[in-house]
C-alpha cells in the first residue's frame, strides 16, 4: 500500500523498514524480510529468557503511559490455572496519534509475531486485536494476515512443530476514546459499556474474562520481534538509558512535512521538527509543541530544545505519551486550542466518575465563555483551579488527560486569556475587599 508521507533519510527504521515494500502486508514479503525469525528463536527459549530479553531492551509502552514492557510481562502469573490472554490495544484515539494504523496497514505480520512472542512469554493460548471502529479497513487487512498466518502454520495448533498453540482474532470497537484505557478496553471487549475498572487488580492478574492478560499497544508488540532478532541490549543501545530503541513519532500541525517518522528515543525535538519536518510552515516562528498527544501539557518554543525520550520530556514538565507531536506556529490562538481540547475530553468522558464527567463539562463551558468573549478574570483562575482539582481524583487517567493540558495552557498563555477578557465590555471589575 502507498505510503502517506515520504520517509526521511534521518529516520532509523527498525519497525517501519518494511513500510513501502511491495505487498508489505503479505506474508511472503514478511518472510523474505526477517519475518518470523524472532519466533523461531523464541521457540527455543524459556519464557524467562524472553522476558529478560525484553527487559534488557528498555522497551517502554508505546501507548502513552510508558511503563517498562518487560516488567509488565513479568507480572503475568504464569503458574495460574486460569487461561492467559493476549490483548492488543489498537484503539488508537489520542488526538495527534496515527502510527498504529500504519503498523497494521503496512506490516500486520510483525504485530502477529509480536503477539506470538508475548504468548510464549506468558503462556497464552488466545488473543484479540482490539481495533477502533473507525479503522474498519484495518480489520480486513488484519483478518487477511491472520488467515495467512494460519495457513502457513504460524497461528493455530503446534506452531513450528512444537506443542505451542495460539489463536488470534480481531475485535472491533465502536467509537469511544475511553476504550483506549486498558481496563475500559477490556470491558468493551467483553461486550459492555467501555467504563474503567477499579485497579488493582491490574489486567496482568485479572484482565480479559477475569483471567491474567498481557495487554500492550500495537507498537509495543510490534517492537518485540526486532528486539529478539537483534538482542535486547542492541535494541536498548539505539535509544538512551531507560528509554530503549526507536519509536514512531506522528508529526502534525504547522510543519512543512507532517508525517509519521521512526526515530531513536532521545532524538532532539528541534532537529525532528526542523530537519525531518522541514520546519514550521509559511516561514513562521514556532510558538508551542504538544509533544505526546493532546493530553500532554504543551511546551513553549523555548522549552522544546530537548531530546525526545520519556525522562527528558517529563523533566520539561510534559510527557512523550503516545508520540503525537503537534506543532503550532506563532499565529495559533491558545484559547481556541484549550477549548477544542476540552470539547474533546468532555465528549469522550465516559460519565462513570463525577470529577471527570462534571469537571470536563464545566471546563468546557467556561472555556467556551472566554472564547465567546463573555469571560471574566475570575474565570481564568477558576479554570486553573478546577482542572487542578480533577488531577488524580478520577477512576482512570482521562480526568488527568483533560486537566494537564488545560493547566499548562492557562499557566503558560494566561496573557491570551486576559486579552479575551479585556475585550469583554461587560467584564466585572476586580473584587475589592470591604472588610
Amino acid at each position, binding site marked *: 500500500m502507498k505510503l*502517506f*508521507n515520504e520517509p526521511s533519510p534521518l529516520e532509523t527504521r527498525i519497525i517501519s523498514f518494511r513500510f513501502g515494500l511491495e505487498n508489505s502486508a503479505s506474508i511472503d514479503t514478511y518472510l523474505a524480510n526477517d519475518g518470523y525469525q524472532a519466533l523461531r528463536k523464541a521457540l527455543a527459549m524459556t519464557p524467562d529468557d524472553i522476558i529478560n530479553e525484553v527487559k534488557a531492551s528498555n522497551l517502554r509502552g508505546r501507548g502513552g503511559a510508558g511503563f517498562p514492557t518487560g516488567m509488565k510481562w513479568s507480572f503475568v502469573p504464569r503458574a495460574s490455572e486460569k*487461561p492467559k490472554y493476549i490483548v492488543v490495544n489498537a484503539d*488508537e*484515539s*489520542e*488526538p*495527534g*496519534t*496515527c502510527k*498504529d*494504523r500504519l503498523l497494521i496497514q503496512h506490516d500486520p505480520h510483525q504485530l502477529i509475531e509480536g503477539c506470538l512472542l508475548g504468548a510464549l512469554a506468558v503462556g497464552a493460548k*488466545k488473543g*484479540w486485536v482490539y481495533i*477502533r*471502529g*473507525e*479503522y*474498519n*479497513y484495518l480489520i480486513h487487512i488484519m483478518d487477511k494476515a491472520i488467515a495467512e498466518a494460519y495457513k502457513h502454520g504460524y497461528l493455530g495448533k503446534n506452531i513450528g512443530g512444537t506443542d505451542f498453540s495460539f489463536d488470534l*482474532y480481531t*475485535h*472491533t*470497537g*465502536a*467509537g*469511544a*476514546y475511553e476504550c483506549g484505557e486498558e481496563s475500559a478496553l477490556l470491558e*468493551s*471487549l*467483553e*461486550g*459492555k*459499556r*467501555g467504563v474503567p475498572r477499579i485497579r488493582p487488580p491490574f489486567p496482568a492478574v485479572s484482565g480479559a*474474562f477475569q483471567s491474567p492478560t498481557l495487554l500492550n499497544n500495537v507498537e509495543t508488540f510490534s517492537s518485540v520481534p526486532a528486539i529478539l532478532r537483534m538482542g535486547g541490549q542492541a535494541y536498548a543501545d539505539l535509544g538512551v538509558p531507560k528509554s530503549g530503541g526507536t519509536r514512531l513519532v*506522528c*508529526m*502534525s*500541525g*504547522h510543519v512543512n512535512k*507532517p*508525517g*509519521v517518522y521512526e526515530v531513536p528515543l532521545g532524538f532532539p525535538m528541534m532537529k525532528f521538527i526542523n530537519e525531518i519536518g522541514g520546519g514550521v510552515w509559511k516561514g513562521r516562528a514556532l510558538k508551542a509543541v*504538544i509533544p505526546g498527544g*493532546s493530553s500532554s501539557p504543551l511546551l513553549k518554543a523555548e522549552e522544546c530544545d530537548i531530546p525526545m525520550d520519556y525522562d527528558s520530556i517529563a523533566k520539561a514538565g510534559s510527557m512523550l505519551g503516545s508520540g*503525537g507531536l*503537534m*506543532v*503550532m506556529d506563532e499565529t*495559533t490562538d491558545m484559547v*481556541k*486550542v484549550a477549548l*477544542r*481540547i476540552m470539547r*474533546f475530553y468532555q*465528549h*469522550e468522558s*465516559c460519565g462513570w466518575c463525577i470529577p471527570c464527567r462534571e469537571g470536563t463539562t464545566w471546563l468546557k463551558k467556561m472555556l467556551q465563555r472566554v472564547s465567546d468573549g463573555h469571560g471574566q478574570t475570575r474565570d481564568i483562575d477558576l479554570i486553573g483551579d478546577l482542572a487542578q482539582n480533577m488531577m488524580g481524583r478520577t477512576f482512570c487517567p482521562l480526568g488527568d488527560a483533560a486537566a494537564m493540558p488545560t493547566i499548562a495552557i492557562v499557566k503558560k498563555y494566561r496573557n491570551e486569556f486576559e486579552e479575551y477578557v479585556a475585550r469583554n465590555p461587560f467584564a466585572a471589575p476586580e473584587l475589592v475587599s470591604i472588610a
Partner: protein
Amino acid sequence: MTFSPELEAKFADLITHYPEGRQRAALIPMLMFGQEEVGSITNEFMNEVARRLGLTPMQVDEVVGYYSMLHKKPMGKYHVQVCTNVACMLRGGAELYDHACHKLGLGHKEVSADGLVSLEEVECMGACSWAPAVQVNFDFHHEVTADQLDTILEGLKK
C-alpha cells in the same frame, strides 16, 4: 428477523472467537457489522441480538447508547465525517466542516431529506499527520481542501 447469509456466517464465526460462556463479547462486533446491513440499530435488531446472546434488550440498549458509531436512527447512505480535533483544526478542519455544513445544508448528525447524505463533526480519527481528514463511511480522505471536498460530495451518487 433475518439477515443475509454472509452476515449470518459472520455472526456464527464471531461467536466462536470468545471463551466458552463468554459469548456476550461478540455483542459490539455484531452490532457494528449488523448496522452496515440493517442501516441502523433498530429495536428489532437489538432484540434479535439480545436473544442470540442471551441478554435482555436493556443490556444491549445500554451498550448501544455508549458508543458513538452505533446509530439508532439511520444516517445517510453516505455518512460524511469531518474531523475538527486539534491536529485537523490547526490545518483548517473547522473551516472545512463549516464549508461542508453550507454545501450540504446540514448540521451535526443531520441527514438530507432524500437520505443520501448525512454529516457529522467527529473527534480524532487517526489521520493527524495528513490533516484535515474526512471519512465518508469507512473511506479516509487525507489533506482535504474545500475544493476537494466539493468534488467528493458531488461524486456521492444514489
